[in-house]
């Protein structure tokens, strides 16, 4: 299997801001359907890596391929979203005044021009799609509830649902469980695990218990490089990791 069969293939990415090396020849592979957790102390380059993948930041050098044919470094932010990379930011951003259903409806793939949306009617296939996403994110009972009265956790799930509406092949999720109750964390873990397989999922997270509960593969970043990679037990017992991160 050549490296180009990976879902996401980052090679020797370097980004520096005013001399500070945010990414230093970072190389990372993500398999199709994999659930990968990225951990690391502050400033390790986690967010910068996500920014490079989604086109928000351009690297100084290196390559970033999405699948076999798509060179991410040549695409704009909206184009990257179009080819199937969805990003969930840390802070939930849903449309508070719209209902859960309307939030998902607006996230549907389709023509976004004024006139097209003015006369748009939901097809049965689209309704089914919304239906299945509601099922996945566990908000089926709240279809007609305005998003503003959802709990923090429910808003996060709704936003993940909005990403799912576009059926992305790769989901980037930034600190999904920050501020969640233990019950919500548990549900989020199940949600992310259920997404893996059909989608590749990359999760950046600080909460080590959460990472332990979901991850099969963990990547530890430090100073813009991959410090260690492997399953949770191996990573946790790596002396270098203990030194920079876990042991602290």
């Amino acid at each position, binding site marked *: 299997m050549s490296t180009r069969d990976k879902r996401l293939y980052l090679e020797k990415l370097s980004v520096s801001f005013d001399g500070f090396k945010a990414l230093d020849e970072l190389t990372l592979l993500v398999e199709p359907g994999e659930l990968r957790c990225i951990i690391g102390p502050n400033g390790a380059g986690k967010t910068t890596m996500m920014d490079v993948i989604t086109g928000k930041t351009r690297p100084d050098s290196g390559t970033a391929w999405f699948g076999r044919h798509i060179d991410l470094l040549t695409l704009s932010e909206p184009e990257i979203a179009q080819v199937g990379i969805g990003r969930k930011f840390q802070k939930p951003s849903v449309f508070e005044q719209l209902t859960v259903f*309307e939030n998902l409806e607006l996230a549907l793939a389709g023509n976004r021009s004024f006139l097209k949306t003015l006369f748009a009617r939901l097809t049965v296939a689209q309704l089914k799609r919304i239906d299945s996403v509601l099922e996945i994110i566990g908000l089926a009972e709240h279809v007609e509830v305005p998003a503003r009265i959802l709990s923090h956790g429910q808003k996060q799930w709704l936003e993940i649902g909005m990403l799912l509406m576009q059926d992305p092949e790769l989901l980037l999720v930034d600190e999904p469980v920050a501020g969640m109750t233990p019950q919500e964390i548990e549900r989020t873990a199940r949600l992310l695990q259920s997404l893996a397989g059909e989608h590749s999922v990359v999760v950046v997270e600080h909460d080590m218990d959460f990472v332990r509960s979901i991850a099969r593969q963990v990547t530890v970043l430090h100073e813009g490089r991959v410090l260690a990679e492997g399953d949770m037990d191996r990573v946790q017992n790596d002396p270098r990791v203990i030194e920079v991160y876990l042991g602290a």
Partner: protein
Amino acid sequence: MLLVGRPIKIVRSERASTWFLFVLAAVAVVVPVLNQAVPESSAFHISSYGLTLIGKYMCYAMLALAVDLIWGYCGILSLGHAAFFSLGGYAMGMYLMRQIGPRGVYGDPVLPDFMVFLNWKELPWFWYGFNHFSFALLMMLIAPALLALVFGWFAFRSRVTGVYFSIITQALTYALMLAFFRNDMGFGGNNGFTDFKDLLGFDLHSDATRVVLVVITAITLGAGYLACRAIVASRAGRVIRAIRDAESRTRFLGYPVESFKLWVFVFSAVLAGAAGALYVPQVGIINPSEFAPINSIEVVIWVAVGGRGTLFGAVAGAVLVNYAKTYLTGAFPEVWLYALGALFVLVTLFLPRGLAGILTGRDKAK
């Protein structure tokens, strides 16, 4: 299968809409009867003055709808909608001036009186075609649309939002007022247009014509209301509310936010223009003071009082505040402006969703 085959409740103000359209239809039927068939001696008779008042209120309601659509739903506080209203009014006024023909004081068959007075020898080019009603009708809608398109295109493309947008819309209407005050603009200077005789050959001073104008205004208001409701209830309407609540998030989802704003702004301007065009033949005058910045602000107050973000609220606010204005400026003329200001403050503090908020009880859900 949870959703398929199940009706989804999207428009919540459905019942209020039905009531409003019912009342509007009743006005269109009952007012003509009360004016034409009920004798003047009866307490139920509606005088010519009453007709004008009802027609005026309905024009204001249409203007309020226009402002509600752009402000209440799209979150863009336009303080310049009187400009679109006035442009529609001026286009109608130009037609009515041409209709006077040789019956003016100076008896010139082509030139309106004020041009003769200014010693002009021929009609300026921009007056051509206004002797045809169909052309004038088109201009009543196109002139406001064009202004909104050009202004909105620059403003939205430059990402002018919030209070900055409000301020430049005030500047826009103020600049137009100053321009229309000038005699050499060719729009009658500070006197504007008045002394209209007839519309499509019907005498504007007869009650029969006035009754028909009231009915036409009611129909146009109803159509405008239905159009607004169709927009609001469509997916585009949900995008518009999404823009109001989280503009950059909407852009991130891939919606061309600027284009949505522009469409809504232009539609809103056309609606305001139509209101102005119907207003002028009923009140019998149009002059530059219609462009006054305060007029645009007043419309915003009507909408705030009625309840922004609900279409029937905008209509109710326009009618109620203007009824109060008619009464108070008659009974206690010096009190009106204070009352209006106090009303706005009270509504902002205690009724953020306006009167419609009390009716639908949606405040509780917050």
